[in-house]
């Protein structure tokens, strides 16, 4: 009997809960988004925190990859997309409603390597980095490398290049940077989410590249700054456009965006690799939300606009804690104006 009473109680409580929860669920404006994996951690945090301020909204985000985000937006299966690279004109022309680009946070990409016995951090000039990934600089003892690293004893061993095997925004930004600093890279390889690598072996995701580099002596690869810092990996400094050698951190990545802000186009579709500015880290990029410029549903529009405003102000405060570089204030000001374009 006692057991039965317990069951009945539990059942009653559940029914009561449903009765209370139902109207709340129904009243919510549900918004779906999909896209980039790089900002997944902060987006998850944002979409969890934002409804606490605006209880009538619920935003679901699926980190399927930038390409998938753009495809789903094109097919109209999501309310907004997200991408680590701006949409091309050809991609935009396929959409009935023109999408707007809103930068959310920034990321940097760092070179990581494994040279047994090496204590110091290495310095890379753009020419050296391009040379290694082009397969022209074959040994760690190459004169160009030793010239950039005076006093460092580099071994006379072959360099093993490790790159991403999966298509990724990280590869896009990295190859975009190499295309800017090396004319040869631009003609031989170019930039995309996947490219035809002249040398090296491929590994999946940041963890795959990091793992292979850690395991293989005399190797070099590239990973996202956020991944390197969270896993306490060593990485090298890169010479920026102003000639300073910089080891990436959140400040120097944000600085890259500030440096590029002056020449920022109104649609925010801009690459900020090799940005000007003494303290600007050269391999940095925005990640964007892709929001339709016109919403049929006024409720959805309201929530999206509220979210963008919140993301640019309170939302940015979560960035540094999660190892993302926040937007510089110049960009925030410009974006706040752009929100008005949503109809």
């Amino acid at each position, binding site marked *: 009997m006692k057991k039965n009473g317990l069951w009945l109680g539990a059942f009653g409580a559940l029914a009561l809960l449903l009765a209370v929860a139902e109207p709340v669920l129904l009243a919510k404006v549900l918004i779906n988004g999909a896209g980039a994996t790089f900002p997944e951690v902060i987006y998850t945090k944002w979409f969890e925190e934002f409804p606490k301020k605006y209880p009538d909204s619920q935003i679901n985000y699926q980190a399927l990859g930038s390409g*998938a985000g753009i495809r789903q937006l094109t097919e109209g299966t999501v309310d907004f997309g997200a991408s680590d690279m701006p949409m091309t004109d050809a991609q935009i022309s396929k959409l009935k409603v023109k999408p707007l680009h809103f930068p959310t946070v920034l990321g940097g990409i760092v070179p990581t390597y494994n040279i047994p016995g090496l204590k110091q951090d290495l310095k890379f000039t753009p020419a050296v980095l391009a040379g290694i990934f082009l397969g022209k600089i074959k040994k760690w003892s190459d004169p160009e490398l030793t010239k950039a690293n005076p006093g460092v004893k580099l071994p006379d061993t072959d360099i093993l290049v490790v790159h991403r*095997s*999966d298509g990724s925004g990280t590869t896009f930004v990295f190859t975009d940077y190499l295309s800017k600093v090396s004319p040869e890279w631009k003609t031989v390889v170019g930039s995309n989410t996947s490219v035809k690598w002249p040398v090296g072996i491929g590994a999946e995701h940041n963890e795959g590249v990091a793992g292979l580099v850690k395991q293989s002596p005399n190797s070099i690869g590239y990973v996202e700054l956020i991944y390197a810092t969270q896993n306490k990996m060593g990485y090298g400094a890169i010479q920026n456009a102003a000639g300073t050698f910089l080891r990436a951190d959140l400040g120097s990545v944000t600085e890259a965006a500030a440096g590029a802000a002056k020449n920022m186009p109104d649609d925010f579709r801009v690459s900020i690799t090799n940005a000007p500015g003494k303290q600007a880290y050269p391999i940095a990029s925005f990640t964007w939300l892709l929001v339709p410029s016109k919403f049929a549903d006024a409720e959805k529009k309201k929530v999206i606009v509220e979210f963008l405003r919140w993301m640019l102000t309170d939302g940015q405060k979560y960035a540094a804690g999660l190892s993302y570089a926040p937007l510089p204030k110049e960009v925030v000001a410009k974006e706040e104006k752009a929100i008005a374009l949503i109809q």
Partner: protein
Amino acid sequence: MATSVTLPAHSPPGARSFFKRLTSGDEIARLVTTLFASLILLLTLGIVWELWIHSTLAREKFGFGFLTSTAWNPVTDQFGAFPFIYGTVITSVLALLIAVPLGVGAAIFLAELAPPRISSAFTFFIELLAAVPSVIYGLLAIFTLVPLMRDSIGPFLKARLGFLPIFTGPVFGVGYLTAGMILAIMTLPFIISISRDSLLEVPTEQREAALALGATRWESTWHVVVPYARLGIFGSIFLGLARALGETMAVTMVIGNDPSIHASLLSPGYTIAAIIANEFAEATGDLYLQSLVALALVLFVLTIVINALARLLIIATTRRGSSQA
């Protein structure tokens, strides 16, 4: 025979008699099972249709040259399937070369020689192995097989057999051979457990007859039992082959993902399944995406062709075997 009894074969055709026939349980069972069976066919055709439609751009642009082209450059929109076909075939063949002798040997031991208790204990573990997800095999390979290949097996092969073109070049630890080895480990459980089952199904009289004719235990096993169970053993090998051809995760983790062709088995390569998994989510541009779908179509056809060849092989060897017997 049962169907001919329940089926009034001479009843006149017509809707009424059709429904009347439906009252018979056997008829309903026949309809339902036919429906289920035809669903399989529909599903296969549906897959081909989808792959065909969604690879139109790539097929029109590259034609049959897609199969022989070695270019894979998403930047310039040049796509070709050959390095991936090569990698898929090489790794699968390597896997079978390693797994078939091991697997059939183990199955013979378990079915013919081992005491029943040991045999059933082993079988339990083998079936457990078959249930391990492929990503786990991939991880194990990264942490154990890859360093082993890089530091021991690779240099050893190069030093002893380096005069062969298949064991030249730098040793990275990842590559065709590593992928072949992990595929061999993954296909082993299938080969062992199905081969063992078919060996156990050989009638005892066959063994007894061989022994009575003065054959030793091994002669009876090798000349009588194994040939008798040949169909089942071949079947297990094809199942293993199918797994090897389509395996994605474990392979992409250890093959090096390099879309070019190398003669050396120690070099990094790529397989069809691996590149689809790697590049599909972030494929930019329609031609790029459709080329990946075209690759899926190629893999589908490749699987069918290889299976058909394998079946021909069975037919050929079975005929020869029976004429000798």
